[in-house]
């Protein structure tokens, strides 16, 4: 940093080393809430691939599976095909609007509690305290010489880092293949090279980002702290140091000596000591604050000890801060959370969710896509009829084999047959067996009398012949030679 006297900043350094952050252990409601969130998110991450879900003979029995090789995405009873990717897009939109909702209501709660970078950094900081001891011991060790104790403690710590990082990478690949099978293959050296490469990359990134980069990711790399400034308004909850109550700062002794001269802040620095990103919340809202609320826990503990009311540092909106500064009383939390903006976000979010659930319940698992062959558009047959060729894509998205019929509608005198048949055996419809959970490509030939419009729309339809008559249809053209050709 440049000295305050250096008004030009000519001597400011180009690069700044990371300042060590050694957050102190703290206890309180927010810390316990963070423990719970960490437990739940890590359990979801590590446990989900191991949940089984029976889908019958023709589909995998893993509850959540992103089957890239076969282009299927399974999530409990929902199976998504590549052409239904709009469901994934819908989920992403919901996630985006969910972030808007959470940010406008409670500020950077995602950053403070649920972001993987936060959760893993928190986990690694617990490892630091487990191996090196609490804040003061960590600082002593970091500044001390490389004794045998320091080397061995560092070795143990990095080994634990590596183990966590490895399990993190290892859990990731389980989402992309049958977890029990992949585990055996992985340890017996039979898994695909991409599996080992993925684990290696994720082990390295977890080790570096969680073990060393930590708050640098939030401060320098992540776009979300920048975007959130547009998401928040004066009614969003922020972790706030109530300077109108705390300033001027003074120790308990000074305050006793001069009653009324000092605010509630006793300048004990506990809020700084527990901060996982190493900032001082008393400097006001800043990009380094992920609103994890651990400083609230720390300050509340101190206030209790010195017999002053809690909440010198607390969740507070900018509006309430102005009100309280002027001597008023802030709004109750529920009123802050339930306001038009959050309700509109919530309305949009739920509407998308409800629409997706509705369309998931309504979708037909038999799909037809027809392509009219363009070379040639039509074929002159020797008896004067015209033949058009079509490529049919029949998607049987159910996990059972199916028998279906393909028919045409709106084309007079049409006869259809597939490669397996011939014009002699052609009729009004063809029957096809579809393999379970697969796409069947067919070449369909349709012959019709030559007298008719040069281009005519008609319908090709498919429906089940095995009890479920629902199906799909496609409107497509039939071409004939122009008159005089």
């Amino acid at each position, binding site marked *: 940093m*440049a000295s305050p006297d250096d008004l030009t900043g000519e001597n400011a350094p180009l*690069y700044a080393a*990371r300042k060590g952050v050694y957050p102190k252990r703290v206890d309180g409601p927010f810390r316990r809430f963070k423990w719970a969130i960490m437990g739940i998110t890590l359990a979801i991450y590590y446990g989900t691939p191991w949940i089984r879900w029976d889908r019958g003979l023709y589909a995998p029995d893993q509850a959540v599976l992103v089957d890239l090789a076969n282009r299927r995405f399974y999530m409990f009873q929902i199976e998504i095909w590549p052409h239904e990717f709009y469901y994934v897009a819908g989920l992403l939109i919901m996630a985006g609007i969910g972030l808007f909702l959470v940010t406008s209501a409670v500020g950077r709660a995602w950053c403070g509690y649920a972001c993987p970078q936060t959760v893993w950094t928190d986990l690694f900081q617990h490892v630091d305290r487990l191996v090196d001891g609490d804040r003061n011991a960590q600082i002593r060790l970091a500044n001390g010489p490389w004794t045998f104790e320091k080397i061995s403690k560092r070795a143990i710590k990095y080994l634990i880092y590596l183990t966590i990082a490895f399990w993190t990478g290892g859990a990731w690949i389980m989402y992309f293949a049958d977890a029990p099978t992949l585990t055996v293959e992985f340890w017996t050296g039979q898994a695909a090279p991409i599996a080992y490469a993925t684990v290696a990359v994720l082990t390295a990134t977890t080790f570096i980002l969680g073990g060393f980069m930590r708050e640098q990711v939030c401060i320098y790399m992540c776009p979300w702290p920048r975007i959130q400034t547009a998401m928040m308004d004066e009614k969003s909850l922020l972790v706030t140091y109530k300077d109108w109550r705390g300033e001027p700062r003074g120790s308990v002794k000074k305050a006793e000596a001069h009653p009324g001269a000092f605010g509630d802040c006793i300048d004990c620095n506990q809020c700084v000591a527990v901060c996982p990103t190493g900032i001082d919340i008393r*400097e*006001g809202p800043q990009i380094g604050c992920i609103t994890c609320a651990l400083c609230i826990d720390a300050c509340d503990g101190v206030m209790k000890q010195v017999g002053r009311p809690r909440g010198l540092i607390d969740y507070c909106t900018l509006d309430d801060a102005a009100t309280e500064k002027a001597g008023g009383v802030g709004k109750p939390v529920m009123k802050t959370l339930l306001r038009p903006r959050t309700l509109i976000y919530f309305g949009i979010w739920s509407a998308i969710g409800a629409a997706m659930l509705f369309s998931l319940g309504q979708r037909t698992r038999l799909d037809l896509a027809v392509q009219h062959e363009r070379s*040639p558009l039509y074929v002159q047959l020797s008896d004067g009829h015209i033949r058009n*060729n079509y490529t049919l894509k029949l998607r049987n998205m159910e996990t059972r084999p199916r028998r279906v019929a393909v028919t045409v509608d709106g084309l007079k005198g049409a006869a259809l047959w597939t490669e397996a048949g011939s014009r002699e055996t052609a009729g009004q419809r063809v029957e096809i067996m579809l393999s379970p959970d697969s796409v069947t490509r067919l070449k369909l030939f349709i012959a019709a009398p030559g007298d008719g419009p040069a281009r005519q729309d008609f319908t090709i339809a498919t429906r089940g012949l095995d009890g479920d008559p629902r199906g799909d249809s496609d409107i497509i053209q039939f071409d004939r030679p122009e008159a005089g050709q």
Partner: protein
Amino acid sequence: MVDRKRIDEATGTSTVGHEWDGIEELDTPMPRWWLWTFYASIVWAAGYVVLYPAWPMLNSATQGVLGWSSRSDLEREMQAHAERRAPITNAIAATPLTDLPAKPELMQAAVQGGAAAFRVHCVQCHGAGGAGVKKLYPSLTDDDWLWGGDLASIEYTIAHGIRNPDHKATRVSQMPAFGRDGILDAAQIADVVSHVRVISGQEKPSAAAARGEALFQANCAVCHGATGAGDRTVGAPKLTDAVWLYGGDRDSLTATIVQPRNGVMPRWGHRLDPVTVKMLATYVYSLGGGEKVSAPTLAPISEGQGADGQP
């Protein structure tokens, strides 16, 4: 600009001196790890330059100590694909052509292989998808065949070609140039055209057509048959249907009778391997006009390479 630099009160950091509508930019120092990442990238790049082709020279580039090239990569990949395809290619080679339709998977592979070869060797004349070119090259997608549309006949035509003068086993026939060589005069040709248009349902019977029928029986029926049904053994087209290679209108028919084209198709038996010819046959067969019944072939297929007139 530099003179506008000042220390920002809240952060204690200098500004860079730029200002946009009251918004200033802090001159925050870069994190040092960023610098190390930058140095690491330089080291990586140095290693890359040594290991891989990098510096452009006048005629080529530095080769790199690993000797990597995109060409050798391609060769390796093509080799791998050839190996991957080998079992299917061998199975197609071992299966008699007429048995292929009964094995849908093998047939499908053959059709796809044939489609690929068709795009390389055949589309120049027959067009993409075998649509043909009007008045030049026949469509392969319709149900009208000059030399037979069953698998064996198609394979024979591909292997031996049509009207190849240097090849004994080639398909051959010759329609005389009735007009050019003075066999029929213009009026007679007009009468024959009328008759052909009557038997193909394009004109109503007339006195000219009746005159033409007598001429047809005397001059044309030997190949095209008394009723104009054609004869595949000599590649004589059927004249009673709606499909016309060189056109069925009066002008086109007259031109054909005056001076026939007698089109030539190259033979592929000595250029392509037997499996490719086989696959091409299945592809052409699959285009929509394939005939299940095997037509009698005159020349035995087994004559193969030895019959091409060259030792």
